[in-house]
């Protein structure tokens, strides 16, 4: 029997989702016979971990602190083994701009983009470059904060007039934003869980919006607005291609333990693009990774068991 600290909640904008993920994980760990201590990540996080001296930590923190490598760094310092990706991989995935550069460098297709910091606009006149960017990426384009886990702050710009307001919104979340070419098509998520040290792609989940023609990222997360199909209805060859692309992205970014890679399948039915990788994907009852695991015959408890065993073995 080992003592596991489930780190959840925290100060990020995704606190609510994280509390749900953490609660699910906690229940599973208890069923698996572990001694479980839930820790709401706050100012006393380090103090509590030093007191508890758990055998491992399950990081169920989404967003800032939990996904950007901060908590992982602290766990390294404290010598507590933890689930999921290490510090460097967290940093790479959390910063979508960095991740996309690495993907591009590895010749993994990702939608064209340009990224700027707020100071580039404030101090270097980057606004003057917007028309050129808009010509290059074409409308509609997607404007998003470089670092933000959920759909918050992601906007569509249908024309040049929309871009400044979309940038202002995105800068509400981060000092760096990216403008990305919009890929019309199907929204796919490939969850990956490591098995004997090798990343194994789980069945693909497709998010199918219930309403046609909506550019609404928030809706993806609302029960009733989006239907999730798992496994996604794709020709075998295409599904395999998407899965191996996701594994390639996972390796390129240096992830470990588990992750979820989001892709777009272009409406031409051929081109695949990797959008981003999430190092602490949602683990609530409606989240995509648990759904994918179930489709692969892995129960939620089985999933949690693997992840914690992996951490304990470190």
């Amino acid at each position, binding site marked *: 029997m080992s003592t596991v600290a489930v780190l959840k909640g925290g100060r990020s904008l995704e606190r609510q*989702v994280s509390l749900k993920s953490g609660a699910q994980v906690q229940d599973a760990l208890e069923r698996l016979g572990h001694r479980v201590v839930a820790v709401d990540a706050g100012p006393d996080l380090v103090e509590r971990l030093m007191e508890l001296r758990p055998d491992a930590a399950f990081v169920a923190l989404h967003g800032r602190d939990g996904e950007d490598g901060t908590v992982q760094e602290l766990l390294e310092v404290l010598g507590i083994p933890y689930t999921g990706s290490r510090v460097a991989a967290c940093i790479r995935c959390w910063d979508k701009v960095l991740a996309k550069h690495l993907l591009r460098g590895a010749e993994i297709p990702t939608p064209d983009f340009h990224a700027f910091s707020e100071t580039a606009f404030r101090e270097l006149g980057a*606004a003057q470059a917007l028309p050129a960017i808009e010509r290059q990426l074409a409308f509609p384009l997607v404007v998003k904060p470089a670092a933000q886990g959920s759909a918050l702050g992601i906007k569509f710009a249908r024309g040049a007039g929309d871009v400044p*307001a979309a940038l202002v919104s995105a800068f*509400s979340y981060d000092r760096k934003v990216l403008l990305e070419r919009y890929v019309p098509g199907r929204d796919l998520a490939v969850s990956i869980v490591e098995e004997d040290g090798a990343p194994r792609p789980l069945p693909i989940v497709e998010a199918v919006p219930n309403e046609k023609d909506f550019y*609404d990222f928030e809706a993806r997360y*609302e*029960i009733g607005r989006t239907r999730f199909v798992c496994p996604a209805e794709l020709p075998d060859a295409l599904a395999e291609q998407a899965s191996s692309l996701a594994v390639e992205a996972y390796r390129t970014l240096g992830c470990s333990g588990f992750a979820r890679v989001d892709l777009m399948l272009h409406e031409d039915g051929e081109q695949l693009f990797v959008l981003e990788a999430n190092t602490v994907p949602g683990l609530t009852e409606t989240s995509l990774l648990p759904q994918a695991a179930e489709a692969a015959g892995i129960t939620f408890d089985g999933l949690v068991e693997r992840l914690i065993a992996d951490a304990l073995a470190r």
Partner: protein
Amino acid sequence: MTGREPPRSTARDLERYAGLFAARTKVMKSSAMRDLMALTDRAEVISLAGGLPDTSTFPPATYASLMATVAEESCAKALQYGPTEGFAAAARCIAEVMAAEGMSVDEDELLVTTGGQQVIDLVCKTLIDPGDVIVAEAPTYPGAVPTFCSYEADVVQIALDEDGMRVDELEETLDRLEREGRRPKFIYTVPTFQNPGGVTMSLPRRQRLVRIAHERELLVLEDNPYGLLRYEGDALPPLYALDGGAFVIYLGTFSKILSPGIRLGWAAAPRPVLQKMNLGKQAADLCSSSMTQLFVTTYFEQGGWRAYVESLLDLYRSRRDAMLDALAEHFPREAAWTRPQGGLFIWATLPDYIDTTDLLARALRENVAFVPGRAAYLDGRGGSSMRLNFSGVDEHQIREGVRRIGKVVAEQVGLYGTLTGAEPTAPAPARPTAAEGLADVLQLPPRRGSRRGRAEAE
């Protein structure tokens, strides 16, 4: 390990439950904005987001003596069920409060409810079939939105200006609905110190609204939680007083004049409507708390309730003034806001390129919160507005909270200027909103750009 076996709730299980959920749960949405709002109650956050009265002003000694009296005189009754319509003694207190606002009511036309919120729920339960039309104000009380949604109502919102609901627009809308063969079941309004708009419906509009209700035989739900919280100007008659109880359902509450914790409100309505609401209440909770009804009646017997409300007026007036001063000092000149004569809220509207849901995310980093305007609309409007509460925190916090919001707004205005080549904005000169500008505050233009997508989100 712990000995308990929590129910499994995996993805597949959720699907199993999902098949059991009623259709109306599909419109009870969770959203990123709601997740953001959940962050506003952290201790370090100055929250101008709530709608809380300041209950710290109620003397603990009074509370203790009231409870002791209840215990001594009616312990068994306090611990027992009561009649669905409420105790007659509670109804007499309600009649006294309504009389203070110029209304007379028969006690058998009253239903004691569990907060005013239950009145909204019971009215919907009594009148609304899925797809039925409710006419509401734009913006409307954010707390009514989930209620309307859960009854699958089709809500049509009518613009407000400085004189309250635009009754001309209401008539046009009613005509249009009639042509479409859709008869609205009721018109929902907060005519006095509107939540969230802060404006008050003028007397001519009140009279016209009541006339419209009579002519078209439509019910009006008058939500009046703040009527007694007037800090300046002359009181206006409630719609219920003008109507004489024929077509107006009146919603009152002890929440803002005494305590929201006692969860007591009431409805005054035409008897046939009230009877149905009574049945609905039986089904919902049998009766409201006997204990708190006895608390209220004991409190009213002591006779000090008006003095307590008076003390709140002085407190909230100063807080409102502190907020208005802070807004003038810290908000940019592109912003506009209402100047309420009472109630708890100010409604501020920023330039249309600022999305207040995103702004809230930024503001939370400065440990300050407000309600994004989109919460007050069902059609995605309100994206650049915010509701600010001035009753729940002290003047120092109000000033500091508004300063912090002003800072992030100024930051965004400046950034937008940089992005569009417009000149950066200097801090606003002290300036109350001119009456003619108020129409723009409340009648929001459609948002540019991402509006459509976001519109569907809330």
